[in-house]
């Protein structure tokens, strides 16, 4: 039986090892923050952090995450995660909200590795699609979250 850790909780898993992580999270754990948007790794709405790195959960199987640690939007509550969420709220970066869990997780990873990202670094990292076109405010929210506390 596979053992994996999700948002700090360890699980023993009997699920089909070939099942994509996205559907495991949604169907087996009721964690609906990761969304299905394309199913083939193009849109990023299914993004979660796997050992801290953003991955597209539609492209990773349960087998592949054995022994690893997954953070979903529901579990992103460390100091940086909270700062990113607060910046999102302050800048009103969300429209329909469907892509936003993916955006927020990607931003949290970017800011962990690059605390003061340039616009070019934001362009390169923030690749989750947003059909509502909230990009300008998403960019502003990343900059706002990067601001050192006064």
């Amino acid at each position, binding site marked *: 039986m596979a053992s994996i850790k999700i948002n700090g909780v360890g699980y023993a898993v009997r699920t089909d090892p070939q099942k994509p992580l996205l559907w495991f999270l949604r169907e087996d754990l009721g964690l*609906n923050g990761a969304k299905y948007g394309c199913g083939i790794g193009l849109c990023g709405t299914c993004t979660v952090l796997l050992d801290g790195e953003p991955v597209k959960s539609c492209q990773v199987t349960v087998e592949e995450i054995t022994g690893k640690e997954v953070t979903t939007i529901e579990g992103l509550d460390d100091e940086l995660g909270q700062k990113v969420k607060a910046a999102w709220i302050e800048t009103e970066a969300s429209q329909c909200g469907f892509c936003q869990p993916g955006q927020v997780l990607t931003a949290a990873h970017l800011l962990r590795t690059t605390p003061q990202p340039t616009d070019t670094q934001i*362009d390169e990292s923030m*690749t989750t699609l947003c059909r509502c076109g909230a990009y300008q405010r998403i960019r502003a929210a990343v900059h706002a979250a990067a601001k050192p506390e006064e």
Partner: protein
Amino acid sequence: MASEMNRRTFIKATVVGFTGLTIGCPDNSDDVEPIDGGADTNGDAGVPESYSLDLWINIDASGKITVQIVKAEMGQGISTGIAMIVAEELDAAWKDMYFELVGEFAENAYAPYGFGSPMTSASTSISVNYTRLREIGAAAREMLVAAAAARWGVEPATLTTAESTVLHPSHGSLTYGELAEDASNLPVPQEPTLKDPARFKLIGTPAHRLDTTDMVNGKSVFGQDVVLPGMVYGAVRHCSVLGAHVTNLAALQAAIADTAAMAVVQIPHGIVVVAPSIWQAQKVADSLVLETDATPTQLALSSDSISSTLAECLTKPGLNVHTAGDAPAAMAAAETTVEAVYEVPLLAHETMEPMVCTARVDGDQIELWLPTQGAAVVVRDVAAQLQIPEASITVHATHLGGGFGRKVKADYAVQAVLAARETGEPVKVMWARKEDVQHDFYRPAFTAELKGGLDAQGNLVAWMTKNAGPSILGDGLPFPVDPLSIAGFNQVLYEIPNQQIDHVACKLGVPVGFWRSIGHSQNAFFVEGFIDELAVASGQDPLAFRKKLVHNDPRHLAVLERVEAMSNWGTPSVPGAAQGVSFTEGSGTYTAQVAEVSVDPGNKMTVHKVYAAVDCGRVINPDAVEAQIQGGVVFGLSAALTGEITIQNGQVQQSNFHDCPILTLADTPPVEVGIVDSTEPPGGVGELGVSPVAPAVVNAIHAATGTRIRRLPISRHFGT
């Protein structure tokens, strides 16, 4: 005020709460168990008693004010806008305001707030319901005042309200929470007094949306997130040829014998494969080969055949939709004439959340949970297609992961009901992205022929135009021409003495539907591209030319002057870039845009910046207006640059974001929004950023290169 203000009689229930839907646990939880650190999070705090004022407003004893939202929340922030208008008249403290999305029932679905459209579309939620919403807030306030007056034994006129509190000079104050129960027992005032807008405190100020916190925590419940006890999943496969039906159902049902799938259910134009997991359902569906009754006509459909049908329609006389003066005579007498033909392709919606609907059938009762822009349409269409009474259908609205006009349709609801009825289980039917792209109700392909005549002084004296394309509303309309086909075409914003404007309805054999900005999405491109051609042909500055044509209308002129100032017209912010302008109207809102574009020696074009000046009348929430215009520009720009659905052998050729791309963050230029101060009635904003951007960019490309683009997308002509 009409008696429909009292809604106690016809609303039966609401389901999807503000923070979440907690109907059941995931059904596959047997396969997984926490082995450490699993905290029990089901602590249930006491909930204060809540009282209905019969006005789509509930106030609980703690003072929490919940406005019930009958409009679809799809990212436009409508719930916040509605709550702001109600709170303004109610004199409520903004921190007390909450909302709840409610489902609609057949009896009242056509009459949210007593009137208006059964759909959330055409940017009309605020513009149509503004006064009604104010009346609702004002009536609730009067009920709370009356309750306080009775409590203190004083005249209501001696009381004032502020920040969710009723005040009296000597008795002190009572909060709305303290008065809610008494107020809920009072009659609803039928003619409440509205505030003088000069005293508005909330309307016109930037307010934070009430739902952003849930969204960034992944807690908002979208259609995709609905969970029912015992729920199974349905994967949809449509016949790849548009309009065809499945003919080998029995073989498909036999083929799933040794798979995880439980059923194959026939639906119009396809099947639903039902399984305990959507992953299993999709896998089995992928393995099935659908045989169909595709006809030679259906198979012959292609983008080329669509273009030739449109071209042929354009040669027909058409119906006249507007006349002024004598356009043929003025054209014949004109010093210079210009003629052009424009064409736009089919476009997909690609809402970030693909179609999804959960259905539960219990005897003759049907319950549906889905993201929809038209709960009433769902009730009507499901009832009609399955021949069941409308009263047996209950619709629960969820958040929408994008709507853009696609979720006005009920096709996915019908599929879910069929799957639930046949399997006897609650079924969540989910579309794969490929189904979404290939079985959309597309923005129709359209064409237009435009002719303009200028006199020796460069005045536009004659305007003869004709557009041709399919009707979205379809046959059997009570008027000769589908108004959506000619929106933004039959009434040009410019003063032109002689006009003849015609329309030819043209069937294409492709399912078409509402697409953010509807008819304006093509007609603004036709009209504003062509106006630019006339300016250029007569050697006039395109913005000065437009200003001259609206000089008698101060409102129009102000919008053009605003964009002129914002964009520093004539001096692009990026060296080497060129500017293009456009001007449109829709849903009572005027928008002028300037795009800055450059084209490199390798013919690759870049949009550097877009300026948008907006007059949407009285602004409710300027922050939401800015967000909607920015998002609209991105949506319109995706379409202008690369948007195109093509068809070959009756099948849509695109399938996902790789061949039907949308703009990325890196590609998105900054969009600067300028809001013109206005006390005119509020106009719509959800669609108003969309249609002006294509002509602004195309006009800028002409200014940069001398190349005139009359056929979208731009990627047909330049690298993007």
